[in-house]
């Protein structure tokens, strides 16, 4: 290549990101946020001082109060810088060994926001009554099992140890700093009117010190010498009035024994978080958690996105631990690895108390269980919502919707849900149909529902300020709208609907009122959405909230919410409350309630209880396709398994190859939706040319055949919290080679391993097999063998192929009859793929219920285990009743005492059978194949590689025709070799 060609290519590379780039200047970097700048300056001073650095915070041993009969103690904490200021520390050890660390300012000028946990947690955790705190001279300790919590007094340092080894250390680097409330210096407060005066002389004394000897500030070594953005902060054209002054919170959290960390979504980056600090960091800014509507976000960046979940997993081959910080304000997190085997993080939050949960693990599954116990497990979604969702901004009329449905049916492509974006509404007054284009919304929805399908319609949180809009007018009358900084009247901002206001869901008065709006029948009082049906479910977008004329496209931080809290205190929680209330509203439209589907763009810890999320407005680029997988995996780590990225990319017109590959990504996302921007060409799969159209049709059908796998995986995550998509470190926590893997993953405990192709023009890839086990190609039954040390295999996937493997030892239940929609499959028979492990065994699960109601909570479900075992010359594949064996573990949150195998739902599918069984890896042609106690079955055998052998190649496959065994009953099939 001549040098000028290279130059040309380089300049192209330089130009392209510019053309499709985020408007970075709309969003703050750390250096543009006063408190982050202060926090990073603090860590810089500490780094410079090295060992001379000592945290000014210490615990007063005299103040320790240990609760009787409960693993709780409280104590006073002081900062040497401000001896007159009081802080309170509280440590609790929960039943499951999780340690909660809370610190707040006591009797300060004002109150720090301390309610974040109340929105995130499902309930007040049970504090252990067995574990006891023991105070010593230098520290106070609690020992339980292999774990120990040690709180050192001076300087204050909190450590969680396992087997004597430090797992999590708080303030080990001395970066703890809770900026106490203070009064603005006198000269500057003249213009202020109602600034409350300090009650005691202590604060005055502090000020006097500053004024008397301003040139020698004794606190400068720690706090710096300037009042950097303490009282007012400007960004672009906006001014944040900051009436409460500085109140940020800095804390270092170290993991001395863990070299890899995961979590703190949402960022477009690798699953194993790259560094932002230390030597040559990957990113120069810290990871930011501040829910924002980022236009055309970058495919690799620590910038904040639409949602925030302040949870981290720290992982090593020895153990996994987690931390969860219940903080709702903007938070920046620096990540560094002082060594390959250790990690330090530095958390800088704008406001709020310290409310940290240390989760001791020691396995990933334990951390998932511990986090789920705090914030809840993902909700079991309606079954239909695992089907294919077809969306576009916008289907322009009810006839358009009908035509799109007709086209899907003409091509016999499955689809479950048609979506309407904002243009269905009159002037973006959500709920209010544009009657010219949607003259018959109920009939339209019924036409969709007649084929077993649903609709999802968008309802955004910005309410157009016009008296003719009942949602706005009623909210205004009830005074449940967010208030401007003055605390009086209604905050007015700009969004799709023009001049708008936002409901303050922190105000309980808004709750029942909002829920009533979704009723499909008329109310005695007030407006309700009578021009809708219960087949319409809801999409909550723009709930960061997105405010077009606000700072960083969001709400001013000094806006006032219920209880007088500033928007800054609750910003990251705000979006979750909207989807929480909407999901309750949709649930309560019917009596008895039905499972709601609510998609949200913004989220927080706990959002998994309310529905699905998607990765927002992605771009139609290969990079975004690839990072979408990583983002969905990261969401799963943080509890939000029901996630997906928009197939095709929101912006841009993907070429057919990209679209096909993106469907291959999409069908292996928990949430599968295709969506497109209003400026793009239509790209519904039926519009593709052949062969692409046929390929996508087959992919969608593949997704539908696997719905039993997905639904079974969702049941499991709804009970255990272990994510639906499982990256390697979750599956093989002891295999360091897999810690960085984030482009291949397993689906639930099904044994399915997928690695979508996400690069252009590529058909070759490598797949990592982490264990000494056989893996079968899902489609060809080709057997590959991993090794105990881990092994990469080469794999070729032409455009119509996706690398999908079944781990030896798995039984995968599918429904292979193509249908137009998932609801039309509920009486279809099953196919069982028995993928024998080396040792000749296999196991699988199947969970079924009616998919829409809550009858499963009353025991109306079918939960089966399939197990294959090889003994001598017999392979026995049996079906047993897991529901009867483990009734208490079947349903989330309901400890059923018993299970009735004859329940109504089981009866309704009593004649649903297994129509085919495929046994893969069988060593030779069977002598006979029978249902235990029955006659010889019809079967075929194709010889090939045996599971227990050493060879690779197409495996020996036994195909049993229609054994006519019922899915709800116990049975066994005996294969005599």
């Amino acid at each position, binding site marked *: 290549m001549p040098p000028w060609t290279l130059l040309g290519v380089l300049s192209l590379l330089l130009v392209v990101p510019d053309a499709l780039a985020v408007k970075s200047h709309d969003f703050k970097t750390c250096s543009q946020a006063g408190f982050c700048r202060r926090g990073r300056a603090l860590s810089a001073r500490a780094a410079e001082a090295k060992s001379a650095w000592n945290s000014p915070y210490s615990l007063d041993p005299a103040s320790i109060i240990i609760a009787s009969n409960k693993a709780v103690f409280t104590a006073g904490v002081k900062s040497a810088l401000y001896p007159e200021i009081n802080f309170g520390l509280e440590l609790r050890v929960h039943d499951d060994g999780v340690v909660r660390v809370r610190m707040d300012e006591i009797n300060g000028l004002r109150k720090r926001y301390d309610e974040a946990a109340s929105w995130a947690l499902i309930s007040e955790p049970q504090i252990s009554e067995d574990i006891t705190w023991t105070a010593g001279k230098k520290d106070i300790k609690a020992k339980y099992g292999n774990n120990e919590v040690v709180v050192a007094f001076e300087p204050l340092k909190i450590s969680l140890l396992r087997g004597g080894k430090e797992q999590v250390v708080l303030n080990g680097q001395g970066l703890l700093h809770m900026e106490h409330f203070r009064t603005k210096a006198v000269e500057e407060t003249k213009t202020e009117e109602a600034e409350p005066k300090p009650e005691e002389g202590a604060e005055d004394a502090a000020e006097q010190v500053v004024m008397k000897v301003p040139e020698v500030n004794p606190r400068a070594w720690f706090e710096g010498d300037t009042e950097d953005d303490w009282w007012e902060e400007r960004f672009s054209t906006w001014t944040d009035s900051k009436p409460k002054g500085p109140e940020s919170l800095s804390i270092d959290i170290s993991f001395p024994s863990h070299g890899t960390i995961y979590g703190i979504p949402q960022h477009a980056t690798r699953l194993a978080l790259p560094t932002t600090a230390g030597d040559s960091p990957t990113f120069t800014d810290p990871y930011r958690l501040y829910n924002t509507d980022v236009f055309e976000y970058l495919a690799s960046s620590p910038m904040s996105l639409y949602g925030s979940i302040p949870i981290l997993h720290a992982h090593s081959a020895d153990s996994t631990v987690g931390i969860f910080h219940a903080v709702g304000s903007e938070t920046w997190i620096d990540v560094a690895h002082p060594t390959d085997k250790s990690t330090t993080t530095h958390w800088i939050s704008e406001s709020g108390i310290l409310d940290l949960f240390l989760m001791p693990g020691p396995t990933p599954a334990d951390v998932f269980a511990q986090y789920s116990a705090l914030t809840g497990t993902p909700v079991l979604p309606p079954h239909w919502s695992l089907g294919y969702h077809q969306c576009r901004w916008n289907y*322009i*009329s009810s*006839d*358009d919707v009908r035509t799109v449905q007709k086209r899907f049916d003409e091509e*016999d492509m499955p689809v479950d849900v048609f979506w309407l974006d904002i243009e269905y509404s009159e002037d973006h007054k959500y709920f209010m149909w544009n009657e*010219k284009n949607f003259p018959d919304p109920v009939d339209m929805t019924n036409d969709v529902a*007649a*084929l*077993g399908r649903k609709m999802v319609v968008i309802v955004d949180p910005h309410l157009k300020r016009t008296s003719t809009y009942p949602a706005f007018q009623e909210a205004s009358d009830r005074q449940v709208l967010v208030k401007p900084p003055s605390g009086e009247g209604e905050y*007015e*901002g*700009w969004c799709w609907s*023009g*001049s708008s206001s936002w409901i303050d869901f922190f105000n309980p008065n808004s709750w029942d009122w909002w829920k009533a709006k979704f009723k499909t029948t008329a109310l005695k009082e007030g407006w309700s959405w009578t021009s809708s049906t219960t087949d319409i479910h809801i999409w909550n977008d723009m709930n960061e909230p997105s405010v*077009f*004329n606000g700072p960083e496209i969001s709400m001013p931080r000094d806006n006032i919410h219920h209880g007088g809290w500033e928007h800054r205190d609750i910003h990251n929680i705000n979006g979750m409350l909207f989807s929480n209330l909407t999901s309750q509203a949709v649930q309560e439209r019917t009596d008895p309630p039905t499972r709601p589907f609510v998609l949200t763009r913004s989220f927080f810890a706990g959002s998994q209880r309310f529905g699905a999320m998607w990765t927002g407005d992605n771009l139609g680029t290969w990079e975004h396709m690839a990072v979408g997988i990583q983002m969905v995996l990261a969401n799963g780590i943080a509890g939000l398994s029901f996630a997906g990225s928009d197939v095709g990319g929101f912006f841009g017109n993907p070429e057919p190859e990209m679209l096909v590959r993106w469907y291959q990504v999409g069908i292996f996302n928990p949430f599968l939706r295709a969506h497109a921007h*209003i*400026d*793009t*060409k*239509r790209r519904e799969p039926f519009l593709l040319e052949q062969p692409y159209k046929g390929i996508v049709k087959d992919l969608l*059908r593949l997704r539908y055949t696997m719905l039993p796998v997905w639904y079974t995986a969702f049941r499991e995550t709804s009970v255990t919290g272990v994510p639906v998509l499982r990256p390697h470190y979750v599956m093989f926590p002891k295999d360091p080679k897999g810690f960085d893997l984030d482009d291949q993953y397993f689906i639930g405990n099904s044994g399915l391993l997928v690695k979508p192709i996400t690069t252009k023009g590529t058909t070759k890839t490598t797949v990592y097999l982490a264990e000494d086990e056989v893996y079968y190609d899902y489609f060809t039954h080709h057997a590959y063998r991993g090794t105990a040390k881990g092994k990469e295999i080469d794999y070729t996937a032409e455009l119509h192929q996706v690398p999908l493997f079944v781990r030896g030892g798995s039984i995968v239940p599918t429904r*292979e*009859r*193509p*249908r*137009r929609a998932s609801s*039309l*499959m*509920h*009486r*279809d*028979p099953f196919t069982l793929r028995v993928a024998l492990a080396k040792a000749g065994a296999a196991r699988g699960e199947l969970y079924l219920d009616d998919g829409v109601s809550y009858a499963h909570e009353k025991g109306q479900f079918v939960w089966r285990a399939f197990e294959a075992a090889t003994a001598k010359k017999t392979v026995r594949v049996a079906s047993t009743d897991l529901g009867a064996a483990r009734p208490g573990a079947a349903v989330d949150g309901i400890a059923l005492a018993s299970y009735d195998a004859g329940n109504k739902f089981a009866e309704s599918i009593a*004649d649903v*059978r297994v*129509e*085919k069984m495929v046994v893969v890896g069988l060593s030779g042609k069977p002598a006979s194949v029978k*249902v*235990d*106690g*029955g006659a010889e079955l019809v079967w075929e055998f194709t010889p090939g590689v045996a599971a227990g052998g050493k060879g690779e190649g197409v495996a020996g496959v036994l195909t049993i*025709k*229609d054994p*006519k*065994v*019922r899915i709800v*009953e*116990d*049975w*066994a099939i005996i294969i005599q070799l």
Partner: protein
Amino acid sequence: MIPWLLLLPLPALAVEKTLGVPPALLSQYSPPKSGSWKCLDGSKEIPWDFVNDDACDCPDGSDEPGTGACPNSTFYCQNVGHIGASIPSSRVNDGLCEPQCCDGSDERPGVCKNACKEVGEAYRKKRDAERKIQKTGSKIRSSYISFAHKEKKRLEALVETSAQEIIVREKEVARLRDIADRTESLSAAALEHKQQSPLYSALLSHSAALKALQREHKKHLEREKELGAILDTLRKGYNPNYQDMAVLEAVRGWEFLAGLPHIGVEEDAQAVSDEEVKTVPEAKKEEEDEDEWTTEDLETGLDELLNTDYVSLLMAHDEHVSTPPPGSLLNIRSYLPDTLIPQYEGMRETMISWLEVFGISASDAEKSDSSKARQAFNDAEAALTRVKKDKQTAEEDLDEIFNVNGFGAEGEWKKLDGTCLELNTGEYTYEVCMFDKARQKPNHGGQTFDLGSFSSWNPSVEAGDSAFYEKQVYNKGTRCWNGPERSVVLVLKCGTENAIHTVAELEKCEYQFTGTSPALCLPLDEKDSREEL
């Protein structure tokens, strides 16, 4: 308890072997003597028992015509009392009664009722109504066809007469060219001298300047149009809450300039500003000088002006300045009543030639001989070109009339050439002038957008196919700001009227019109109408 001992065999789905088999294949679904049955694609032999046993055995799915067991096969429902139909196997036993299978045979017995009687009746009623429309429409269509035939005759006659006229005129042109050449060779030197006149060279530079101005003017018009579109987007999309005075100024300035009401102003206020708008152009008109060209003059007249043959003009000018003032015999025409002019013209020509012959009129002729001859030649040649062009157009039209890619094999669309159809959707009126242009005209002020010019019939169907004429493509309209060139797909079906019924912008700036035209109403097939059930 050993549960599987209690297992009862599943009740086999009692399905007839021929269920779902279309009549044409029935013969292949009879019990084979050997007991083994061959899949229709011949790929496999299976026991006859496996046919319709609700488990898929054949790769082509042919063993399960009556169940949903094989993907991608079809199910035939007989629909006695109505018309038989095939549905994909994915719809068999899915719990829904397919409307195509009114006999309910697509679901297990007892799930769907047999509705073929009602469905058949409704179908026939609907079909009769459609036939009625088609019948009426086809009458109109045949009138279109006879129009095309008349048009063809007219054009053929035109071609014929034009051809004759061309022969005559070609001779005349040859004769005049000869004269002009001869006279010019004599006066070439004189012409060169004349061309050095300051007036002539000034004229040439005026012309050059005018041409340049025209070019620039066109460029600016285009720019203005584009800027207008950009500003319209700004006006509709800007955020008044931003308090950005520069943007607000720009929007208001544009609204004033373009005579648009201020966006966001309520209806009553709009009426007021509408009045204001009306006064603006009037005020402008007053300023215009009477002698000055109007905008329309500029659009149409300028090209003509610039096409002037300046050499001829020079000759004519030369002639003019050397002509005696009015009153001479040669200008006697102006004194004659209109009725006498033809005779006079004849006489005049004779007179002049006489005068020339006798040298009486020589002093005039000497100076302008060559220009007159050239003028006469030019005029004759122009007339010839015109006739040739008329002939060519007629010939082309003739080609199009019965062209499958043009007005259809029977010429049924010729009648509609240039016919404009409109639909008022409230905010806009959409118009398509068949085979010409489609437009979007705002009903409340603003710019009319060109949505494209006729480009082709349905490009994805073979020419002449019946579906070919059900779609017209109009493309290369005004480009959307930040989007494609506007385009329209006009989807038509048989109807008694030429009309647009719906307009939808399915993608940004890409419109779909649906409508009807009698030109699509084929005459009812005798066989069709007899085929009753």
